[in-house]
């Protein structure tokens, strides 16, 4: 009994691991995502039937791709006999072999650019990427994003219909466009990660299935585009954040960086993240493109994870990196994070002046940062009001718990 359920789990694991590759390969061959998905599902059924007696083949991914390909051909033959008039719009536009191609020819890379096409709605890009590349079921994606399964199914169906009707190409963009388009792909992966890392809603403060999936997609992309600094940067950023995941919560409460038990950090993930950051630094030093936002954010996280004691943090380096990040991406949220670092270097009064100048009212992290600075400046009454505003603005239970504790510990001179 245990043995068969172990085997089932192993088959499920292989299937999810190989799903993106199987679907991507079939989508290229048959020009139709539905055919590719249906054939992949049929290949799984065949595997579940055969592998328990025949054993798992030496190259299960290849076996699944071949089997799914055969199933698709069977189906197309059946349909062409049944309905000779049936003509399907071609989704695929092949590059001719002589055309200068994108950085790497890989079906999964084509697929990720199709899933993250700018003509698709952002939430559809996320859903399609998780479904087609990540192999998550519609139900799993719906659960992860806390929407009804029918809503998620509709979102995915609609996106696939648009890919087909509007002829969204199945292709790695040409070099001129690849940076722009890659930005959309990285944004999707980072969004999946962040949704898992600090859930905006729901009972779980962290949803590890999403952080793990984002990292897995990041690793696939890194494998496909090893020369892209931003791909390495995003993976490093996610690894260095993930390394601190368990230390970020204690007793259902968010633990901020300064209070975290650093012995609980995952050293192997930190080592992997640091190696990627060093690689990015070397690439930048060798004179290739200036680092983008993900590489700089990864570098900031590398500095944070470089010391065993919060007090040893090199804040001047962190502020310098935030300056660089703000230059690349001048958003008020980055200015807010920079101000938090400035507080460590120049004091809370300097930081508060910066925070006050930002138009971020209603954003929970702005209220939380402001509350903390006011607390440090001994302005307890104002801090209390600010903690209240922060608590009202967050939907994350662990963050609420942390803010409430901080608020309760305020020294109130009026009492």
């Amino acid at each position, binding site marked *: 009994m245990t043995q068969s359920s172990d085997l089932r789990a192993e088959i499920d694991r292989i299937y999810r691991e190989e799903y993106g590759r199987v679907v991507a390969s079939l989508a290229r061959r048959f020009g139709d995502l539905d055919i590719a998905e249906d054939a992949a599902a049929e290949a799984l059924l065949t595997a579940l039937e055969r592998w328990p007696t025949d054993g798992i083949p030496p190259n299960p991914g290849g076996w699944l791709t071949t089997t799914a390909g055969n199933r698709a051909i069977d189906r197309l*033959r059946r349909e062409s006999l049944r309905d000779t008039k049936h*003509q*399907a719009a*071609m989704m695929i536009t092949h590059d*001719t*072999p002589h055309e200068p191609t994108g950085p790497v020819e890989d079906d999964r890379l084509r697929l990720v650019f199709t899933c993250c096409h700018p003509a698709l709605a952002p939430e559809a890009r996320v859903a399609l990427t998780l479904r087609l590349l990540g192999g998550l079921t519609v139900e799993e994606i719906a659960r992860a994003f806390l929407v009804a399964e029918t809503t998620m199914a509709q979102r995915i169906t609609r996106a696939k219909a648009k890919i087909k009707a509007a*002829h969204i190409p199945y292709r790695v963009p040409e070099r001129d466009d690849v940076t722009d388009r890659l930005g959309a792909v990285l944004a999707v992966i980072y969004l999946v990660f962040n949704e898992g890392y600090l859930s905006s809603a729901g009972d779980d403060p962290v949803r590890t299935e999403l952080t793990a999936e984002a990292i897995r997609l990041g690793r696939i992309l890194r494998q496909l585009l090893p020369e892209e600094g931003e791909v390495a940067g995003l993976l490093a950023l996610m690894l260095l954040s993930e390394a601190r995941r368990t230390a970020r919560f204690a007793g259902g409460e968010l633990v901020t960086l300064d209070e975290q038990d650093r012995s609980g950090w995952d050293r192997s993930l930190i080592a992997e993240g640091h190696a990627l950051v060093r690689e990015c630094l070397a690439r930048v030093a060798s004179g290739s493109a200036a680092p983008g936002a993900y590489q700089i954010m990864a570098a900031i996280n590398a500095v944070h994870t470089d010391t065993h004691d919060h007090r040893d943090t090199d804040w001047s380096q962190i502020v310098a990196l935030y300056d660089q990040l703000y230059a690349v991406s001048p958003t008020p949220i980055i200015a807010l994070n920079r101000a938090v670092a400035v507080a460590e270097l120049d004091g809370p009064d300097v930081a508060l002046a910066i925070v006050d100048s930002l138009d971020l009212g209603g954003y929970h992290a702005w209220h939380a940062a402001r509350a903390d600075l006011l607390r440090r400046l001994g302005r307890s009454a104002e801090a209390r009001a600010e903690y209240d505003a922060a608590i009202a603005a967050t939907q994350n239970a662990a963050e609420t718990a942390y803010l409430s504790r901080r608020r309760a510990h305020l020294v109130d001179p009026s009492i």
Partner: protein
Amino acid sequence: MRPLSFVERVEAADRLPSTKGKTMTQYLLSVHGPSEVWDTPLEEAQPKYEATGRFNDQLKTTDAWVFVGGLERPETATTVDATGNDVIVTDGPYAETKEYLGGFWVIEAPDLDAALKIASEASKACGGKVEVRPFAGE
């Protein structure tokens, strides 16, 4: 223009890598605006007309060009309904809305990326947002 049948695709699938030619799709690139747009003084509209004219001239030299036209103001529209027993002709557009189709291009492109590139140039030239819609295959 002819989409490949399933049989052809199955055969093509067995001859990898595929060398089949690119199928072209027609796209409608349309520009919308409120009826006041038609009141824009000529001096103001002139630079856009000229930019659009240059864009059109350039487009006409490519295989992508199928049709281009700018419409008269929506108040000049008439609606004809011959679906019942009597033919009903009414003055005015099919539906009163805030914005109307102002003009459009029909182009031919191998895929959406190519259509979006042309739409982006069209948008720059005419100074309006451009909606891109595929025509249904034959």
